[in-house]
């Protein structure tokens, strides 16, 4: 099992947000977290990558407990995240953003047989990134920044890639491009945890999903259940705002 989160509680200082969240992501599986604004999706991402500390519960990554580990330790273990804010270093060039990832990615634990991502791989996935290497990231469009963010995350050599609201605000063409990249990543044996507001996109990108509301998992979408979930008005209206 790539990721196991058990009865996790976390929040911001004394304010609790997550109330006993349990999810799991198997090896080479793509799982979505869906839910309306304020459901606790981003807090869950922050707790998984170590930016928010859990107050109760457990997080395990490939069998190792990482609940109390600092964020950089989780990165070294093989969890890479593209934050909702993209987390790019705007004053640095695209090349410098990638160079830093390439360097830190060398220290990341890799299982036997893991084929590391090279700069050539990410340029193949995102040709525009290669064209913009000398450009400061803050001067790129939103879509281009998102591609740099994913490219940078891949150079961290993750076994689990966590993507928080990756497609928000992007043009449909860019979204399609990113979708095809995610499909390519699946073929390389990577596990994906994708936070997504659009249930249609989540269905296109993942095998299963957890529906969150008010800091809890309120519904699970199992393998092959996407269609029935999308046609279920009760779930859509209650948790996904239509």
């Amino acid at each position: 099992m790539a990721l196991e989160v058990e009865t996790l509680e976390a929040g911001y200082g004394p304010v609790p947000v997550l109330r006993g969240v349990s999810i799991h992501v198997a090896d080479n599986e793509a799982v979505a977290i869906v839910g309306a604004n304020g459901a606790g999706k981003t807090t869950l991402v922050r707790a998984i990558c170590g930016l928010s500390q859990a107050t109760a519960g457990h997080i395990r990554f490939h069998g190792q407990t990482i609940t109390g580990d600092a964020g950089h330790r989780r990165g070294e273990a093989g969890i890479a995240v593209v934050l909702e804010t993209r987390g790019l270093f705007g004053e640095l060039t695209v090349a410098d953003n990638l160079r830093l990832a390439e360097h830190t990615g060398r220290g990341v634990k890799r299982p036997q047989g893991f084929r590391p991502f090279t700069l050539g791989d990410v340029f193949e996935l995102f040709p525009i990134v290669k064209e913009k290497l000398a450009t400061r990231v803050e001067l790129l469009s939103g879509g281009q920044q998102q591609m740099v963010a994913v490219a940078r995350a891949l150079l961290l050599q993750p076994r689990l890639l966590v993507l928080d609201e990756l497609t928000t605000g992007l043009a449909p063409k860019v979204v399609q491009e990113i979708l095809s990249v995610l499909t390519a990543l699946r073929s390389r044996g990577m596990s994906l945890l994708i936070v997504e507001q659009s249930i249609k996109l989540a269905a296109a990108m993942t095998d299963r999903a957890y529906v969150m509301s008010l800091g809890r998992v309120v519904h699970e979408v199992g393998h092959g259940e996407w269609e029935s979930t999308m046609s279920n008005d009760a779930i859509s209206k209650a948790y996904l705002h239509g």
Partner: protein
Amino acid sequence: MTKTVLNGRLAFAAVMLVGLILPAVFERHMVDLLVYAGLYTIAGLGVGLLLGQCGIVNLAQALFYGIGAYASAYSTVTLGWSPWSGILLGIAISVAVALVIGFPLLRLHGFFLALATLAAGTIGTIFFFEWDWLTGGTLGIGGLPPLSVLGFEFNSPARFYYLVWAVVIILLVLSSNLVSGRPGLAMRALRDSAPAAEVMAVNIHAIRTKIFALSAGLGALAGSLFAHYSTYVSVESFTVQRSIVFLLIPVIAGARSIWGTVAGALFVTFVPELLSGFGDAHQMLFGIMLVLVVTLMPDGLAGIPARVARRFAR
């Protein structure tokens, strides 16, 4: 070679040439001030690396400056060691102290961290004052031997000038390499967005602690050189006011510029001297000049060449 690079190298060569002949044309007092500007460049460089590359305000540099100076004074005058051993001892103690106090303090951020370093600097001054068995208290320690290499003694302002500025240039080159290399990238990343750096497997706390220790080492080196230059050290030289002066150096220079540190150090050394003719008003005038520099030149003095170049490019 592009025209810009060529112009830059020519300008650098011209500055070096002027620097070489300054002791011959300046009177002794001015050379003395240039020596102090060199010492302040070294201490200010450490503060600047923290401020400009990591976004950390360090108000404890006088503590490390003092440790370097007292280590040199005690080891040479009381223990009879060679001056170079004393310098190494000062750097080693400063780095050790920085690691011990930096490990907990550097978990703080922003104003809280700045206040914590201010507290560390204040405690340091109190120790320097109270531990008179080691520091000589207000009487200080005098009679430090001059530095020497192969029998050549750096025992005059002009001789010390060449020594200190050679050290400055070496440190500036090394610091530029550090900042343009991978460690510099990581530093700028954490300054830009600490959470993003953290999830990129960058050990933020380790980097901040290492740079704090490096900064302390530079402070100690400056303090040791100061001690051997002035041949006398006392607690007045290592107060919080001195830490503020060290912090002003990168602020005035433009914190992200390594070579600009020289301009900041020249400013804090020469401007008060030039204004001293105005009697009691000179501190107020210095304050006004500081405000003008900070408000009119957000990139500091180091940003002036780029501004001039932009003006001519229009």
